[in-house]
């Protein structure tokens, strides 16, 4: 039954500290798969992870992780979920093989199976040859891989990755993201917390954006990029007339580098653009969907969410 349950379901989830509200009335239902949890530092990502693992009690609201009610069965969640913290967290005087095997045993695997799994996942993350070396001598990239390996050793249904590319050089980052991208094909769901929207855009098929503990926007990555896409029009030299007409019809149009761009152009906007271009008798050389980035989505949505009522719920 839990196999079909969503990765995460929250209802009015709130965590208040004396000084700050870290998570504020969060209502989401996130499907399984590779999900990006994005937001600036302090957006509430780490607090949400701690609540998901039952290590921090919500002030209000409900929280289900892979179909398990965290308040009722925190240990049940922890035996199904792997966790890779952002900070340094490895015992430095042990070998990678010992560290990962020990954490496998702590997740409930029998000792022999834990050692075998440790060997397998260290292979998987590319530490096969280094696994008998003490972690203290590892580079940042190797430590990140070891952290990922300990999260995967017990074959979890879900891994929570907190800033897995932090501190990595470009090549290390690409390799880490490639690993994360592969986890989906192993049947392991991923919740990737990061402030790097590029990482999410590269590997996640679903996005949850938080800002100051509140939900900014949530949805499939493709859909978010599409619905917030910018329409790019090439109508020759009479651009100013088109921009004026589009703005008069309520669209966010502007001249950009010899082209006309229409932001937040949905299906309705396409009809309006077609009609206006025809009315003005302009030649429509080209009409394409501009590639947006999640950064733009975030900046647009977070700006309106922070404003007065009317922003996204």
């Amino acid at each position, binding site marked *: 039954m839990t196999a079909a349950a969503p990765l995460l379901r929250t209802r009015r989830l709130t965590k208040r500290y004396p000084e700050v509200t870290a998570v504020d009335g969060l209502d989401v239902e996130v499907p399984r798969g590779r999900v990006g949890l994005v937001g600036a530092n302090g957006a509430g990502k780490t607090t949400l992870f*701690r609540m998901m*693992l*039952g*290590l*921090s*009690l919500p002030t209000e609201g409900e929280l289900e992780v892979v179909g398990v009610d965290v308040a009722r069965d*925190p*240990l*049940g969640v*922890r*035996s199904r*979920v*792997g*966790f890779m*913290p952002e*900070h*340094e*967290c*490895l*015992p*430095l*005087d*042990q*070998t990678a093989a*010992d560290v990962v095997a*020990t*954490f496998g*045993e*702590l*997740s*409930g*695997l*029998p*000792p022999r*199976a*834990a050692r075998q*799994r440790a060997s*397998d996942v260290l*292979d*998987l*993350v*590319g530490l*096969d040859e280094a696994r008998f070396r003490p972690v203290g001598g590892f580079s940042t990239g190797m430590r990140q891989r070891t952290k990922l390996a*300990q999260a995967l050793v*017990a*074959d979890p249904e879900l891994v929570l990755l907190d800033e897995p590319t932090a501190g990595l050089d470009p090549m290390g980052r690409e*390799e880490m993201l*490639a*690993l994360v991208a*592969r986890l989906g*094909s*192993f*049947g392991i769901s991923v919740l990737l917390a990061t402030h790097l929207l590029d990482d999410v855009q590269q590997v996640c098929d679903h996005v949850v954006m938080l800002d100051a503990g509140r939900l900014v926007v949530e949805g499939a990555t493709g859909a978010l990029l599409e619905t917030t896409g910018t329409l790019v029009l090439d109508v020759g030299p009479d651009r100013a007339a088109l921009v004026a007409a589009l703005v008069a019809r309520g669209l966010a149009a502007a001249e950009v580098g010899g082209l006309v761009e229409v932001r937040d152009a949905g299906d309705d906007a396409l009809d309006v653009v077609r009609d206006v271009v025809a009315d003005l008798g302009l030649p429509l050389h080209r009409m394409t969907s501009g590639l947006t980035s999640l950064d733009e989505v975030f900046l647009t949505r977070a700006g309106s969410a922070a404003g007065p009522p009317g922003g996204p719920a």
Partner: protein
Amino acid sequence: MTGAVYDRGYRPYEGARGGQAAARAALWRATVRRALGLRRPWRQKVAPFVLLAIVTVPAVVNVGVKYLTRNTAASDIEFITYRDYVGVSNALLVFVALTAPDIICPDRRQRVLPLVFSRPLRGLDYVAAKVGAMAAILFAFSFLPQVVLFVGQMLVSTDGALTYLRDNAEVLWQVPAAVALLALYYAVIGVAIASLTTRRIIAGASIIGLFLVTSITSAVLVGPREEVETVRVGPPAEVDDGGTAGGDGFVVVSPDGTSQRTEGLVVRVDRRDPSAAPLLNVAGLPLILRDLVFLGHVHPSHPMSGLDGGGAMAVGVYVLWVAAGLVVLARRYHEVER
């Protein structure tokens, strides 16, 4: 580099999975391994195995002496008794000060606790595993030498092994009981103190410091063991000393009625009032409980001997220390933030 690795694919795990109890047991095993230096560089193995050697030597010597003197008048000499042998070595205290910090401080210093508590474990499971591991090693290191002593003495006994076993059957429960009390106590106190800091050196020094300062304080409060007392002195023929009258020299009778023979007129007589100060001696407290297990009362040579309710007080202080240590640990390792 990773491309070749990927080709091996990923195999899901479909075997058995344990829950909370398995996780706790796994943490216990990992801690015992760490404390014994297993799967660690040889330097880490030195302390535990040197300790084991140190605590086993008296048993081996005792059995050896028994064997060599087995058909002589000296064969009755008790080089060491089972009671003496519980907590005989200060090396055990040094081991606690070295090992308790090593099994607990790095977890906090290297921020491993979030990884530990992302497993199906509660804070109390962590405490149970760490204290349990420390106590198990202390138990083993105190109990194994006793086994050597018992089996050795049984085998070299001139009365026959079975007779020795029958005559000494009571130590079969006394030794494990006394050793268990001692192991639990030192483990809780050592681990609780170590939990208060992330620095091993500070934790170790604090443990040794507590043992030293309290034992010195207690010794100062108890005072010197002997005083000069000459009370009633006369030739043996004139003093009724319980049937030993007669012979040469003098007999000295102290106020409590005990008497001693002497050649001169000045003798040293143990005349000390019973004192509760040994209760302050953190390191020595379990030895009073040991005596309660072996003798049923405080040993006559102990400064607390003769104190009304001394045994019960010692048990009370023991329980207080263990409870205080466990409360500290439970608070330090409460994994859920509210």
